């Protein structure tokens, strides 16, 4: 158990370091995927099977793919140099800040009054962390949180579409205004003249005029073909 814990923990921390330190945002996203999968394995060690599965599906599956799509769309990888432009002083301050947070959290963990932290945890009932138990808790005990989360997801989806959607004036119109009749077609196609078989009569010999008026007399001698339009 201990071996697996240290293996997954080292992989997770290495992935986190990669997210922070790699210059290309695409590699950052891939590093985040490694970190998330290692974290899902740590969740499994904590007997949280459902959360681990959801982590792999939601994060490593959906969120990272979304990131990769946006990185490809924005094209951040073309100029990786300006992405790491923090001044040396700012970098030093950020490092100090991070070290301070870590030391504070470690002091809090070590100095806490929670004696149970030193042990392996409480005795677990059957089905702890299983989808059945999670579903029961989610739909009975924490129903309000479940419903609020679903509303939050809906609002976020609407907001994402409203933010990223195509709006007028943001960019040039790819397609100018066109009517359906502007599409090029042979003259007299789609008119009554074509329907009654007089199509050949209506086509001008040169094709210069789009719709010839029936100035020419009927030479074929059939039924007189009227101008449809």
């Amino acid at each position, binding site marked *: 158990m201990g071996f697996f814990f240290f293996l997954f923990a080292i992989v997770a921390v290495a992935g986190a370091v990669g997210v922070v330190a790699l210059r290309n945002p695409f590699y950052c996203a891939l590093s985040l995927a490694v970190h998330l999968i290692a974290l899902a394995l740590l969740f499994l060690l904590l007997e949280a099977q459902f959360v681990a599965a959801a982590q792999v599906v939601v994060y490593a599956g959906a969120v990272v793919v979304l990131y990769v799509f946006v990185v490809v769309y924005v094209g951040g990888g073309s100029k990786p140099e300006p992405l790491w432009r923090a001044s040396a002083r700012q970098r030093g301050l950020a490092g100090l800040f991070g070290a301070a947070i870590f030391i504070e959290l470690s002091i809090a963990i070590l100095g806490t009054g929670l004696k149970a932290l030193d042990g392996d*945890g409480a005795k677990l009932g059957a089905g702890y962390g299983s989808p059945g138990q999670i579903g029961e808790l989610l739909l009975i005990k924490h129903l309000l949180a479940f419903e609020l989360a679903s509303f939050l997801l809906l609002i976020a989806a609407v907001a994402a579409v409203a933010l990223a959607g195509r709006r007028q004036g943001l960019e040039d119109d790819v397609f100018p205004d066109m009517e359906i009749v502007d599409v090029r077609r042979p003259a007299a196609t789609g008119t009554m003249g074509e329907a009654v078989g007089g199509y050949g009569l209506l086509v001008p010999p040169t094709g210069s005029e789009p719709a010839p008026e029936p100035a020419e007399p009927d030479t074929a001698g059939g039924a007189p073909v009227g101008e449809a339009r």
Partner: protein
Amino acid sequence: MAVNWYLVVSALVFSLGAVGVLVRRNPLVVLLCLELMLNAGNLALLGFARMWGDGSGQIFAVVVMVIAACEVAIGLGLIVALYRRRLPIDVDELRELHG
């Protein structure tokens, strides 16, 4: 393993994410580092749930994942909107949030 160790890993990942948010200039990578911090919180939540043997902490973690997904959707929407307006994709250049 004792729950302590999970909390130490969680604290380490959280501070790494905080450093990334402070240091990086690309909003995409800032969002990635925010994900790191949220996941560190999730790891701590699951550790405490394991400590008490109570499943409610796992529900908490699931709700945090939902919130992270919302944050990703809105953040990436903002970045795409920035790109559409030909604004620089750089948090140092984006000092005015109006309009």
